[in-house]
Structures are given as structure tokens and as C-alpha cells.
């Protein structure tokens, strides 16, 4: 059980790392949204699922409830994070931000 939890958390951390590096290194706004939208959401999901699993170690009603709430956060993040990113993209398009292209000169 612990092994699965550790594995999931480390996967999540790798996702988060990718997200952070992507946000830092990508050249323009739209490409930065990609790691922010996908990797952060994914990393968050993995770590939260792992923690919910870890929480169920001592199985009882209250830990089940807590686990359920953590899963609720997962669902919520899954729902809201892409929407927020969509809102930001929409804002960028409306604000007239052009996408980055590799310029010759």
C-alpha cells in the first residue's frame, strides 16, 4: 500500500516539476498555458489520490469520510482548473495576444 502511495506521489511530483519548468521556460503565453493546464492538474490529481489512499490506512467511518472529501477536491480540481485555464486563454485571445512563432531574423 505504502509503495503505491509513494509511487503515485513521486509521479505527481514529476508532473508538478514538469509543470513548473514548463511555465518557467516556454517562450510565450499560449505554450505556457499547456503545462499549467495539463501538468498541474494531473500532478494535483495524482498526489491527492495517493493521499486519499494513504488516509484509508486506518479504515474507519471518519477516515472514509475524509477520503471522500479528498476525492471531492480531486473532482473539483478536475472540473475547475481547465475552466480557469479556458478563461485565461479566452482572455488572451480577446486581449489580442498573438501566438509565438519562430521568427527568421
Amino acid at each position, binding site marked *: 500500500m505504502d509503495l503505491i502511495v509513494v509511487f503515485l506521489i513521486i509521479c505527481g511530483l514529476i508532473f508538478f516539476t514538469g509543470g513548473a519548468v514548463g511555465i518557467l521556460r516556454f517562450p510565450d503565453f499560449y505554450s505556457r498555458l499547456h503545462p499549467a493546464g495539463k501538468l498541474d492538474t494531473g500532478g494535483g490529481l495524482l498526489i491527492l489520490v495517493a493521499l486519499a489512499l494513504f488516509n484509508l490506512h486506518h479504515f474507519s467511518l471518519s477516515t472514509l469520510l475524509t477520503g471522500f472529501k479528498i476525492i471531492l477536491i480531486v473532482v473539483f480540481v478536475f*472540473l475547475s482548473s481547465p*475552466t480557469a485555464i*479556458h478563461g485565461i486563454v*479566452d482572455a488572451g485571445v480577446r486581449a489580442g495576444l498573438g501566438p509565438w512563432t519562430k521568427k527568421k531574423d
Partner: protein
Amino acid sequence: MRIFGIIVVILTGALLIYAMGDFPSWADPASPAHNHVSPRYIEKSLEQTSVPNLVTAVLADYRGYDTMFETAVIFAAGVVCFFLLRIPRKDEPTVRRYRHTLTGITISVKETREIPPVLEEFERIDTLWTPPDLIIKTCCRILVPFLQLFGLYVIAHGHHSPGGGFQGGVILGASMILLAISHDLRTAIGRMSERVHAILCSVGVFIFAGTGALCLVLGLNFLDYGALARILHVDPVTARSHGILIVEIGVGLAVMTAMIWIYNNISSKGKYDEGL
């Protein structure tokens, strides 16, 4: 001004750092702050109020009077925002734009009424020509009831977990603000009109202060919830717990409506027409 600022900052900082030398070190259990008043709160509050969350117990019972004025502060902030910004209704007609949802044709109408009727096939567009985004609208329509349910849970469960009237009230208020952001300010006002939330805001504080006054009428000191035992037919300790719950509901109501009130006034510049 900049140099003056730096001088003031350095002087104040020097005073504070000078005084820091005599502080007990951080998180030291032997510090006087932990050993004079607070041990009694920790040891006795469960048996005196039967509320496991010590912060709630101290907030709403031992120092309930502070909390009453804290609620009054937030109420005052709502009233002040209204008082400063709200532009009273004028009957001169204003131009409003509507878009036919099927064809995308936009028409302008001169209207005098504050809130036009909801039309099936026409969608109102604000002066900046931004219809609400469909994805965000749908997603938020799912989330708003969930948020409200969560807010109610936070208010009701404040005895056993972090939370309470204030936090729950802010979440409830935020749900209405979310509605206003994702749809339109007018939609949110349609759900809860200005008069309703203005009155509810005072009613919220009134519940708190009224509970206190009720205790006074029943023969004990102001805000001594033990007096409620006579009406609720329970022992005084449980009466305290119930009294705290009643008070938290009042706080939640006041905070929720005050947040909505402030947001509506700020985001629409007091016109209650179109917001963020």
C-alpha cells in the same frame, strides 16, 4: 517623500527589532502568553460549552462580544459602500443592446426599467459587447449549488472542524459572486435583489445581537447563552452550544450579504447595471 518613508521605516524597524530581543523564542511552550489565560480555555471550554473546536468556543462564547462587533464592522462596511457608491435610480432612458441568439443580430433598445424581462431568444449584451462564455457559464452553473451546500456545511459544522459563520458566509457570498462573474451581474441580482440582501445583512447582525438581548431579558448577563436553557429545554451547557450555533447562523447571513453588497457596489460603480 521616498526618503521620508525610508527614514520612518528604519526608525520603526529599529524600535521593533530592539524590542525583539526580549521576546520569548518562537513556539516556546513556557512563554507567558501560553500560561496565563489560555490554559483555562483549553481545559475547560469543552465541559463548559461542549464545543470541541476551541476557536469557535472562544470566538462565539468567551469573547462573543468582540465577534458581535466584528459582524457589525462588516455590516458597516456594506452600508458604507452602499452609501458612498450607489447612484439612485434615474428614470432617464438608457441604451441597452440585445443579441438574437439564433442569428447573431444585435439590436439596441432604449429602456427605462431597471431590469428587463427575461427573453427566450434575445440575450442581453453589455456595453462592452461581451456575452458570457458558454463553457464558463455551464461549469459555474454546476459549481454554484455545490459551493452553497459547502458553505452551509461549513457554518453548521463549525463546532467540530475549522469553520464557522464567518468562513461559511464568505463562501456563500463567493458563490453569488461567482454567479455574477460567470453569467452577468444582472442574473445574480435577479436571484437576490438589492433590497433583500440589504435587509438580510441587518437581520444577520440582528440575530446575533438579539440573541444577546434575549439572554438579558431572560435574566442573565448579555450574551450569556446559558439563559437560553429555559426556552430550549436543555441543560445550560448544551444551551451554550446551541446558542453558539444560532449566533454563527447570524454571522453567516450577515457576512454573506455584506460580501455580495460590497461586490455589487464596487463592480458596478453603484449603478447595479453591469459588473465585472
